[in-house]
């Protein structure tokens, strides 16, 4: 049979999240028609959306935060009124207690929890898997989570489960790419944290196989982005609210729209354009807890805060039209040649190589222009290209890729996101929480740094210690790479001194680390 394991590895690792273990047969399926295997997911457009029981809309979540904040405030005031000054408020007692936990002991749980996930193929094994875990009685009773923490974990879990169960994972990789391109950071505050998952579900996912302009508008009008980049505070200096409150512009979002989301640095805009766009999108905000402008937590256009008058942006005049003024501006920016170039370069840089092949970038740029930013066409062109299949697998998996790929190979569907979230924190990629609006880095240099690799090994060793006993590492190597595995990797796994060690080495092998 004309099976090409190397091409299957490209299909699964470059485009997807790696082969699943168990009875999935991913590698075999991918090897008979690698391109078809990748593209099959694109045909299932509904597979991009993520709905799970309990996941709520941005508006509902915003209201939940407002209610929670009111509750905390009331509790604090009640405690202050009722208790003498030397008695701590009850709400503050438990976090303090938990802070005293040994972090070393806690870190041991990182891999432990991951090991305690449910095996996808054989529920019967679940009991024996528990052997290595810490007895629950040794830990203090967990602090009940507040609504923000609960939501963040539920959103994280839904995303992790989707990625673990996906056939190839190309669609989910696209989601992760776009979500990082248009990132917000949960560390901005309580609203950002509770909205992080909903932002991705509502503004990113519906458009991952749709149009760039639609994604752009959805993102820039999403309360999470408006909050993250301060636009809800920006007032037109000559607007009624600006005049009354003696406050004015904040150009943070306007700048990042052009620098990071569309045109890119050097994309042909000036400081005046930044200021103009900032004026144009004044009034783009979300309704607060009082709900004066609309249902609390929903996007609203506040005409009172909107800078009146025409604005000149990138050489074109935008007549006053309220919300439509900004929508027209965004639509034009989405169509700008610099945007096509910026997106094509970043897209190829993510999937193919840190130094993206110029011919491939040019082709994707042309497709972007010709199709008016059809992102499905962009993805399809990438998969159809020769370059994407010929380029060696040199990109380093990000921590998220690595953890998801490991979970898939081990055929364990997470039931609790804790282990993943903690590991991502340790490895420098805290979920939905990049340090700045430019998102997490996307180069091998960033993720193949010494400390990062050493930490991955520590996590792999913990996983090996907890799971190795019940797993045949050579079977896993077959699932992961079959005869595309190097002779050295095979030998290293075969000659390991224990199954535990073999599993750690397999997870750390170049076949599992590079994509």
């Amino acid at each position, binding site marked *: 049979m004309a099976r090409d394991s190397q091409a299957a590895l490209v299909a699964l690792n470059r485009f997807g999240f790696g082969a699943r273990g168990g009875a999935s047969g991913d590698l075999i399926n991918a090897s008979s028609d690698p391109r078809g295997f990748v593209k099959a997911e694109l045909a299932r457009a509904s597979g991009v959306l993520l709905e799970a029981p309990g996941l709520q809309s941005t508006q509902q979540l915003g209201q939940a935060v407002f209610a929670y904040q009111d509750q*905390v405030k009331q509790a604090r005031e009640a405690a202050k009124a009722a208790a003498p000054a030397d008695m701590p408020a009850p709400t503050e007692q438990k*976090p303090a207690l*938990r*802070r005293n936990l040994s*972090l*070393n002991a806690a*870190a*041991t*749980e*990182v891999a432990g929890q991951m090991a305690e996930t449910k095996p996808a193929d054989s529920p019967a094994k679940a009991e024996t898997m528990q052997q290595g875990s810490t007895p629950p009685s040794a830990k203090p009773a967990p602090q009940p989570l*507040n609504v*923000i923490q609960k939501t*963040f974990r539920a959103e994280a879990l839904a995303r992790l489960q989707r990625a673990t169960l996906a056939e190839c994972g190309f669609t989910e990789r696209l989601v992760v790419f776009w979500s990082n391109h248009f990132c917000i950071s949960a*560390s901005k*505050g*309580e609203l950002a944290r509770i909205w992080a998952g909903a932002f991705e579900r509502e503004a990113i996912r519906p458009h991952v196989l749709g149009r760039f302009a639609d994604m752009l508008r959805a993102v820039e009008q999403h309360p999470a982005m408006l909050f993250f980049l*301060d636009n809800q*505070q920006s007032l037109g200096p000559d607007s009624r609210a*600006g005049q009354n409150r003696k406050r*004015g*512009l*904040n*150009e*943070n979002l306007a*700048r990042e729209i052009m*620098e990071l989301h569309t045109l890119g*640095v050097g994309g042909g805009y000036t*400081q005046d354009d930044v200021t103009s766009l900032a004026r144009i999108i004044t009034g783009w905000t979300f309704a607060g807890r009082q709900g004066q402008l609309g249902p609390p937590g929903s996007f609203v256009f506040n005409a009172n805060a909107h800078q009146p008058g025409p604005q000149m942006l990138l050489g074109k005049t935008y007549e006053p039209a309220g919300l439509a003024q900004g929508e027209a501006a965004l639509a034009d920016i989405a169509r700008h040649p610099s945007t096509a170039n910026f997106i094509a370069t970043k897209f190829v840089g993510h999937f193919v190589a840190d130094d993206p092949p110029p011919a491939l970038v040019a082709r994707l740029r042309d497709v972007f222009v010709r199709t008016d930013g059809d992102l499905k066409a962009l993805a399809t062109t990438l998969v159809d290209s020769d370059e994407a299949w010929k380029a060696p697998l040199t990109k380093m998996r990000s921590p998220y890729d690595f953890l998801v790929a490991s979970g898939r190979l081990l055929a364990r569907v997470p039931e609790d996101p*804790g282990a993943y979230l*903690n590991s991502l924190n*340790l490895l*420098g990629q805290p979920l939905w*929480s990049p*340090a*700045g609006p*430019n998102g997490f880095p996307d180069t091998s*240099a*960033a993720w*193949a740094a*010494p*400390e*990062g690799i*050493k*930490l991955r*090994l*520590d996590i792999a*060793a*913990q996983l*090996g210690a907890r799971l190795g006993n019940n797993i045949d590492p050579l079977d896993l190597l077959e699932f992961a790479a079959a005869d595309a595995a*190097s002779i*050295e*990797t095979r030998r290293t796994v075969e000659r*390991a*001194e224990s199954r535990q*060690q073999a599993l*750690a*080495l397999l997870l*750390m*092998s*170049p076949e599992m680390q590079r994509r």
Partner: protein
Amino acid sequence: MIDCVENRLLTSRRGLLLGGASFAAWAYLPKFARAADGRDPRLIVVILRGALDGLSTVAPIGDPDYAGLHGSIALAADGAHPAIPLDSFFALHPAMPEFSRMYRDKHAAVIHAVSTPYRDRSHFDGQDVLESGYAGPGRVQSGWLNRALDALPRGERVSSGLAVGPTTPLVLRGNAPTVGWAPVALPQADDDTAMRLVDLYRHRDPALATALSQGLQLDKAASGDDMKRKPGNAVAQMRQVARGAAKLMAADDGPRIAALAFDGWDTHANEGGPVGRLAFLLGGLDGALAEFEGGLGERWRDSVVVVATEFGRTARINGTDGTDHGTGTIALLAGGAVRGGRVIADWPGLKLANLHEGRDLKPTTDLRSVIKGVLQGQFGLSDRVLAETVFPDSASAKPMQGLVAS
């Protein structure tokens, strides 16, 4: 913040440090050209990422236009939290008493209205220029501090076991091998497993072999330190990193040259004046400087700490009591080797006509001149090496004289 507690609980300090700060140092003990005079100089570069508001840190309260431009967040000589006068014109943010003390003792200096040659307002490009030392942004993979190290005669390898941090700042990246430090929290893979993996990488993936080998040189130097984890705020993190770095650098075989980066200075909204968000961060920076001083002990005498940022912020506050991306800002020097007690500034004034593009403090001093002056004073690097290798094509930015006591 309550919602962060959960995430931080199970995070090692390493994870925390990666988020907000990082530290890396040169792997070798340089043989300084001027070792003959008995000095054993140390240099620490602190990068403030996000663009520090220089006008709020060292305020030109003597400038008649300052109070109007900086509006609600302007510092003043009076009030509940008065700024600390540095001379008849400039005053220091009240959150920085340690720096003020060093300044009084003539071991700290301010350079004002300074900037890199970068004139646009992108953080990422601005940091690129600040750290790469090139005149413009680009895909450069080495920093000026690393190239300065490369120009020094390399001495013996620093033996205290160190692991390279995953976020070595660009300023210290390049040919000259560097090490980093971050405490260990996770149970570690055993040596045998690690050695087998190094062996596999050697055959199949040399780049990962190098990375892992370096990563395995564990942080013995930091073991036994007093840095029990304390998941805290950005201020605590800054102090912690500084304390650990100072401890390592104080050792006889410790690194002499190091770089750190602190994040979070992008104060677009509600920046705060004498108290508030920026005040909080400046308190952390001030604490970090005190940790350097305390931790370096005897070595502080020959040390210089350079604090720099990618650009400044608008002279006029924006509509949300913050400041947007600007141009001119400050650089700070601290250390026993600094000829301090001075604010060095060719003050351009804050009249509208004097502002850069009508909005930013106009830079009148090239930051490269300041750094060159420090590198020359500490390590004796020549004008030519500084103008061609360390900061390519920078002959016009002459090293500033007299920054370092000799």
